[in-house]
């Protein structure tokens, strides 16, 4: 019980640290790919401190305020339900299906704030974001269902513990096709290039973030970082066997993230339609094939 309470407090903090670290790391790696020196690793921290201590904040009303708070709160609440290494404070009260739905809270909060900001750029960004979500959810859900059916459980903790035995029990080896499909849609889930059209600064003035400044932008940045953490943690839990402790868990996340950032560093940006067609073609076909194989073998 005490351990659970401790992990309940510790996990969000760890997640925040990891998330902000990833944000800085991605900027550094991208800079190095561009043959730049790049900002210091703690640059996102400076940015967030700056934004939070800004001397003036501009609000567009109550929905705007609450939406942005909800987006961060939703992200933090979701983290408690995802096992990270040995820490899984609330996993017994919510399984993977609950996590899937809790993940809706933070985009919904951001979408509400964007809608309340009375700016069409924000609405365009939200519309693109939702279309992208519709795109990647098809392969992602197919792959996730394959995992759930394979392990005959919807609990993330059980999925992790069933992979714990040996390296070969990892789903990435037992279920290569769903793992591959999920990996292919990972950039879309993280909204990094080539799928960053929702918040494209050049086209739609950074989309949902267009009217956010000061603490609002800080919250949005934290929400984005937490979202990165959540997606990577789910990927690691589903396919890479979770982690024996928080360190191995972190290293696995780091490995996945590194590849993602490298893709981000060298890719151009898709158009919305291209992204949708891509996501519904190869990743969906691969995930579907994986699901069919799982259904066949589990009979």
């Amino acid at each position, binding site marked *: 019980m005490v351990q659970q309470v401790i992990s309940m407090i510790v996990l969000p903090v760890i997640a925040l640290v990891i998330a902000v670290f990833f944000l800085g790391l991605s900027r550094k790696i991208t800079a190095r790919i561009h043959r730049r020196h790049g900002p210091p690793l703690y640059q996102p921290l400076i940015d967030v401190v700056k934004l939070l201590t800004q001397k003036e904040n*501009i609000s567009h009303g109550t929905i705007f305020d609450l939406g942005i708070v909800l987006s961060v709160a939703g992200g933090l609440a979701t983290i408690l339900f995802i096992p990270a290494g040995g820490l899984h404070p609330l996993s017994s009260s919510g399984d993977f299906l609950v996590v899937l739905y809790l993940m809706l809270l933070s985009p919904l909060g951001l979408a509400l704030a964007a809608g309340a900001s009375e700016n069409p750029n924000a609405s365009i960004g939200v519309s693109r974001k939702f279309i992208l979500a519709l795109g990647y959810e*098809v392969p992602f859900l197919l792959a996730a269902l394959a995992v759930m059916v394979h392990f005959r459980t919807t609990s993330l903790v059980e999925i992790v513990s069933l992979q714990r035995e040996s390296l070969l029990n990892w789903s990435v080896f037992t279920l290569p096709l769903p793992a591959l499909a999920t990996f292919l849609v990972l950039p879309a889930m993280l909204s990094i290039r080539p799928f960053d059209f929702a918040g494209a600064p050049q086209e739609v003035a950074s989309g949902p973030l267009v009217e956010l400044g000061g603490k609002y932008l800080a919250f949005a940045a934290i929400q984005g970082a937490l979202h990165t953490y959540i997606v990577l943690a789910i990927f690691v839990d589903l396919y890479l066997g979770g982690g024996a402790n928080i360190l191995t868990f972190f290293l696995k996340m780091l490995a996945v993230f590194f590849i993602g950032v490298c893709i981000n560093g060298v890719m151009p940006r898709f158009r919305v339609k291209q992204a949708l067609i891509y996501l519904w073609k190869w990743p969906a076909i691969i995930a579907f094939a994986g699901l069919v194989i799982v259904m066949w073998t589990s009979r």
Partner: protein
Amino acid sequence: MSGQTAFTLILPIAFGSAAVVYLSGKISAALRNFLAVFFAAVPLVLLTALYGYTGKIVYYDLSFLNQSLILRIDAFAWYFASAVALIDFLAIVFSLRYMEDKKQLDFYYFAMLLVNAGMLGIVLSGDLLSFFMFWEIMSWITYLLISYKGGKAVAAALKYMIMSIMGSCAMLLALGSLYSTCGTFDISGVAEGMSSATPGYRLFILLLMIFSFGIKNAIVPVHVWLPDAHSEAVSPFSAVLSGVLVRMGIYGFLLVMFVLVRWNAVLELRILGLLDFHLVFCWIGAITIVVPTFIALLQDDAKRLLAWHGIGQGGYMVLGIGLGTSMGIAGGVFHTLNHATYIALLFMVVGAVEYRTNGVRDLNELGGLAKKMPITFIGGLTGILGLIGVPLTNGFVSKWLIYKSLVMNERPLLAFAALIGTWGTILSVFKFLHHIFLGQLPQKYNNVKEAPFSMRFSIITLSLVIFLFGIFPGLPLTVISAMLDSFGIIPLNPTLFGVPSTLGELNTITILAAVLAMMVIGYAVFAWARKARRTDQFDSYGAGAYVPVNRYQYSVRFYERAYEVIGPYIRDRIDEFYIWFVEKAEGFFDTARKIYTGNVNSSTAYIVFLLAVLVILKMWGRF
């Protein structure tokens, strides 16, 4: 008041009140409104008193058939009856202001109360004959209520009526057949008779009944009446129609599959000896989820969008029931109640917006109304959260139960259909919320006021119900568990905050605590940072230019980029097929009509010709 008295009183009061309200309207409008609300509340109060009561009364003897008409109440009937009474009461409260400047109000309230009485009669009837009677009362009054506005509504109502009559014919056929087989109309008697029937006969009855109830429940190939009917009806009635009236079909499914033909028998049925009947039923549900949900994406009319979602959400119930595990049925039945609450809420929200903006429900013309109608906005937000199934709303629990049972029964493709339906729902309901309440407020709505009290009352009540059942799902699930027990299926035994841990991991109170705690932490940081300055809607980023009034809104073709890809596949081809069929049929009958010239000579010639043919055939046979 004893349970017996309360139970005896419900239906007479429900039917009598309709007449009383109609007559009182001749005296005074205020009296009529008061009586309508009062009499709509009476069944609700009586049903509250009847919680946990089981009983049976004979109210009429059909001595010539040696049958009697029976009313019965148990968990199954009580559950649906309370949903009906709740939604109808709130809809009538909502109507007070919504309908105030409309004509023929005496008739309107009469019809609303009569529909209520009809639905109560359906769920409380203990034999199939009274079931059919009440069913027809409900169907016909619905026809009158849909066509209430006149104009296009009459066409929509006619479409409804034609399909409804087809369903009624099928049901009548099934009833006649059942009576001749079992020799009784009593539900328990029929159930006994069915237990010894052949599988083929069971399938026959099931298919007829499912066709009949499926038309009412608008499952996909027979859903085409619903979008027109919902969008043309007045908003309070749309709420009743989509919330509970259509779900009488779900009641019918449950009745026929779990009471008349027991579930064990249903599981054994095969269509053409190949397909599992209940799986076919599930797949119909899955198609009903996916196709209408994606058609809803294209709609620009607020009520039409909701109507398509009404069809889509019906698919979840069908899916849950068709799966037949205790969690699946519990999810499907719970979803029926949840759907009634949030779809009624959303129709009321549209109604309130319509009322304040003089009947605008084109999504592209609205915008920014959250500033003017905050309570209505909260209602709309709660409604869409429920419809999506965000945790802490009731929609989440029922959907979770359905998903969980689908995954655990290794039906991932069905689960995928259900899950992707949810994501389609998110897209279109966010469009609904965004276009009405968010974005720039057009100047013509500067003087819009918050909805009047009676509307807010209904909206707030339903919002509270959504969160209440979302946080304490155990309340309705206990009743559903009792219902499952009476069906002969392992009961769910829910806890107050979810399901027992042996069945799965769901604890709504923990989720609530987590989200609330994080909200508090987030808000603390938010409040610690410098307080924000409130700015005007025109002080928005416009690339250095001045924001244009009335035009700075992105709403038309909101998901254009997605339509480009999926548009060609999500047309309503079934409706097109029916229209094509009707056109061809008209042509055929037109040709056929030419045979009947009305001339005596030609008639005589036909008869002679026919006789000649008969004679020839007879002779042929001899050789």
